[in-house]
């Protein structure tokens, strides 16, 4: 279980998280929605310890990541997680198979002789075969995402964190990735947290949806409840309207 309480984070004068409170139950898929720059990805990085919160706590299976200080313990903590990056973040210099099994050397005791077959198995799980020796530069965007997903699940983590899993993909490939996320949950029984602003994807994969706005969780509920919410800001976001309580501060981006 992931239990976040009062998570705060600022970058210089810009406050991103102002006290996020969230609980993710074992085996569920929680989708976090919110506008660009609302702090969704920052929160995800706080969970895995890539970003250190300024305050609050994030407890995963009894370990508070905000209290972990040295790299050995961070490595131990991160063993439980697989992380899918928004732009896949595959290592350019390695082949697809080497990318998939990269974490096994550090996260598991599996002998190297088994790496090739594991790479093939995990790639098959995400619907890819015969690309083991290709370089990431030779792959399409959708294939990169799937290879990254295979890499995230290679060490069989308990938790998978998805950062914008469908961003930049065509609608069909987005749906394929959604199906994969649902499949992985069924087959591996993992607990997942996905950050997205793709509402179609959110409705399809989520057990619960949480919306972050102005650094706090505005509402958290089952997708069917979110669809009929009375919260004006959440309604505006899920319906994708420019008019409403959420005012995009265009000047901030100038």
């Amino acid at each position, binding site marked *: 279980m992931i239990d976040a309480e009062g998570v705060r984070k600022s970058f210089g004068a810009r406050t991103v998280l102002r006290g996020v409170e969230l609980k993710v139950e074992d085996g569920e898929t929680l989708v976090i929605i919110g506008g660009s720059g609302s702090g969704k990805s920052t929160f995800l990085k706080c969970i895995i310890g890539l970003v250190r919160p300024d305050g609050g706590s994030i407890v995963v299976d009894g370990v508070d990541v905000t209290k972990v200080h040295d790299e050995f313990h961070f490595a131990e903590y991160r063993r439980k997680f697989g992380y899918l990056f928004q732009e896949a973040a595959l290592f350019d210099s390695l082949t697809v198979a080497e990318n998939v099994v990269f*974490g096994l050397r550090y996260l598991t005791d599996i002998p190297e002789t088994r790496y090739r077959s594991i790479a093939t198995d995990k790639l098959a799980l995400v619907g890819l075969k015969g690309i083991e020796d290709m370089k990431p530069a030779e792959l399409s965007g959708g294939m990169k995402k799937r290879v990254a997903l295979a890499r995230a699940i290679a060490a069989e983590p308990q938790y998978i964190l998805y950062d914008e899993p469908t961003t930049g993909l065509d609608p069909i490939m987005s749906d394929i990735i959604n199906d994969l996320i649902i499949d992985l949950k069924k087959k591996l029984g993992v607990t997942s947290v996905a950050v997205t602003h793709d509402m179609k994807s959110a409705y399809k994969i989520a057990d619960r949806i949480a919306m972050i706005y102005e650094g706090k969780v505005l509402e958290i509920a089952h997708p069917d409840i979110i669809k009929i919410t009375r919260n004006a800001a959440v309604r505006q976001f899920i319906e994708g309207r420019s008019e409403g309580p959420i005012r995009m501060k265009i000047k901030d981006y100038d």
Partner: protein
Amino acid sequence: MSAAQPAYDPMKATLTTVGDRALSIAESMGEFTLLIRTSFFWLLRSRVEWRQTVIQMLQIGVQSFPVTAMTSLFTGMVLALQTGSSFRDLFNEPVFTGTIVSFAVVKELGPVMTAMVVSGRAGAAIAAELGTMKVTEQIDALYTLGTDPVRYLVLPRVLAFLVMLPLLTVFSDFAGVIGGCVVSYVKLDVPTNVYWHEVFDHLGHKELFHGLIKTVVFAFCISFICCYKGLFTRGGAEGVGKATTSAVVNSMVSVLIIDYFVTAILVALGLT
């Protein structure tokens, strides 16, 4: 009615600018020191990534060999031409050309020129590669896959530099002295046996040691500066460009500054 704007205070603005700059420098120095500390931590606490280290040795050392040898060869040649011609004008014969060329190349020009060339070639490549990895989240990916970028990326590069730069310098020294020999023979009519006598009569292991000590210090500085600039890249493609330029400029300037101070220490210790 809008609120009145506070009056512009030039003193406050200047102090703010100076203060921000000082804080930024202090922050960079702290990050750089922590990078060195973390590298030593992983060197002592984990197994070295030998495969990565060998790959880096090939990229930093073997692939830099032609350009460093060529640079030293022509440096030795021009040095012989300049000193031989000057001495012929002054003393009617180009005496001590071999001694001057070998001393200058082995103690000073070989280490410095090699360090400069490798900074420009391998140092820039390191900063650009790590910078690109940083802006495409590959560095974060390393953390999520159970390893530390300092252990996987920085340490192999630093070790490769520490091994390969002295080796490259030895080859460069040799190329420079050979270059001097060719010019002395062809342009100054100095017989090769006379040239080599002048070289070996005065050049000993102390001179070679003097040059190599400097090279090890250069290797340490260049590798850490370039890795630091790469790992702490901010922004996209523009950031990578800036980091690469900054890595090369800082490495080269550091080599020249450190060269003086290390030489001063070696001279004080009698290693001249």
